[in-house]
């Protein structure tokens, strides 16, 4: 089914001739950069109550457009449609908490250097868990489609209960339906430091399965002027300290990855 859909999508893309010779020129001519962002992943990309998209990745999208000298247009995406939207040409760029891996590199053009990094950890009531092995045979809440669900189930014999989203999974954790919530360590850290509903909870493990996040352009533009320009922009975000500053301004816990990248670029 998935394969069939991918094939038909590819066929349609080929038919509509969306692939253009120079994407960068097209964007400048259109005067706008269309960026796919998350709207349900606070504080990276989320909605305020006026319906405006805000967050770290929205800051990045706006800055990228400003550097290209064009307007920004934000399109909310979810994990299951972001790469299709990029292939179809509906968006020019993905900045949507997307992990960088070999499988995805065959579909979209991942921009290096990576702009963010996360890993897997759990949030659990303080004092109940000490190490990953403690998850053996225990029920662990998680979010559907997270890449580290499988290693936790196979490596530590955890019984994964996967929910549709973070609100459902965290509610299940607080109701005692599971011993811990398996999720990105960056999210857990920023929640523990800022949200009073997690008083009495902790992040007890060493972060595992580290994964880097990448901004993506259409595959054919990776080595074209558009991809080159995006590479320069991301490198400058690290070098100038822009990413560290925006990370802090959005209330996200300090990221060792950003500091490391910042120092490496000097």
């Amino acid at each position, binding site marked *: 089914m998935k394969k069939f*859909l991918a094939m*038909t*999508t590819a066929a*349609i893309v080929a038919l*509509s001739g969306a692939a253009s010779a120079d994407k960068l020129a097209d964007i400048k001519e259109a005067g706008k950069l269309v960026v796919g962002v998350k*709207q*349900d*992943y*606070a504080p990276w990309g*989320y*909605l*305020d*109550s*006026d*319906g405006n998209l805000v967050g770290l990745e929205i800051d990045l999208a706006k800055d990228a457009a400003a550097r290209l000298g064009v307007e920004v247009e934000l399109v*909310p*995406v*979810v994990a299951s*449609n972001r790469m*299709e939207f990029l292939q*179809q*040409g*509906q968006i020019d760029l993905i900045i949507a908490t997307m992990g960088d891996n070999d499988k995805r590199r065959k579909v979209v053009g991942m921009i290096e250097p990576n702009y963010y990094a996360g890993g897997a950890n759990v949030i659990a009531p303080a004092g109940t868990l000490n190490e990953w092995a403690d998850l053996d045979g225990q029920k662990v809440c998680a979010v559907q489609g997270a890449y580290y669900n499988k290693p936790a189930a196979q490596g530590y014999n955890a019984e994964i209960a996967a929910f549709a*989203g*973070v*609100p*459902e999974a*965290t*509610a299940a*954790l*607080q109701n005692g339906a599971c011993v811990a919530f398996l999720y990105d360590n960056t999210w857990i850290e920023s*929640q523990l430091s800022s*949200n*009073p*509903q997690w008083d009495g909870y902790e992040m007890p493990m060493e972060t595992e399965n580290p994964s880097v996040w990448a901004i993506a352009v259409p595959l054919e533009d990776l080595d074209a002027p558009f991809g080159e320009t995006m590479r320069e922009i991301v490198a400058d975000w690290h070098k100038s300290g822009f990413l560290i500053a925006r990370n802090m301004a959005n209330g996200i816990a300090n990221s060792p990855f950003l500091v490391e990248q910042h120092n490496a670029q000097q």
Partner: protein
Amino acid sequence: MYLPLKLPQNPEQRPGYMPVLLPMKSHAAPVGVGTMVQSFLSTKMGLFVLAAFLISLGAASYAQAASGAQLGTIALLWKWTPLLAKGFGFNVLISILSMAIGTVLGVCLGILQVSPNGIIRRVAWLVTQFFRNSPWLVLLFYCILLIPFEIEVFGTTIPFPGWLKAVIGLSLPVMAYMSEYMRGAIQSLPSGQWESADSLGFSRGQTMRMVILPQTVKRLLPPWMNLYAVLTMATPLVSIVGVDEIMSFARAALASENRVDLLIPMYLYVLCWFFIYCFPISGLTRRLENRFAVKS
């Protein structure tokens, strides 16, 4: 012989003219939609459900106030209400457009299903059965992924946004259901209607237009309204395919607040929006069904 009939001026020019007594028009007072909505909102059932909702909300926010100094649940729901209302408006828009497209196509398809031509009849039957027996979500996925996001016609590019694809995706099952309702309504009319029209010299097309179709309207109206209520309640499906409606805004609000205790009240609140919109429709349908019921 003296005929006590007041004939039109050029009766011979009317197709299928025969000096017969026309059926009497019914003079039942029309029922205003506004008054019916009011009467059904004020029924005991509706009040009971609303009261249950408000009590559960009140209890939740009381527990909140007792436990901490954070913003209460009701205040949070109120804060997000403008955005949710905007989303719900989109649900209503999608449901109305899908219903309109689905109804027009469905009526045509239903008439084709009783065509004297065997091939047309079978093709119409097949199309109807295919879309009637497909899950709505799968049809939506196909429409979202297979229809391109813009179409080029004579050099101009026409954008084809996601919500429009969702409208098409939802109108397909509506079309199939309408087609079946239509076929059922036509076939449920006594064959005497066809025979007498035939004896009066009506052609098949005339019989359909002037005799059969007008009589199907009252048979179609209750199931049609039921279908609309069901369709409206199915519109949150489009949130899965990335269209911004009330459910995706509710999810975004939950993600943005990161408040575990908000989950149940938020979904209850969304439910309430749909209930207030759909309950009067189902009440109205019930009343129409009673009015049109065949007395035995």
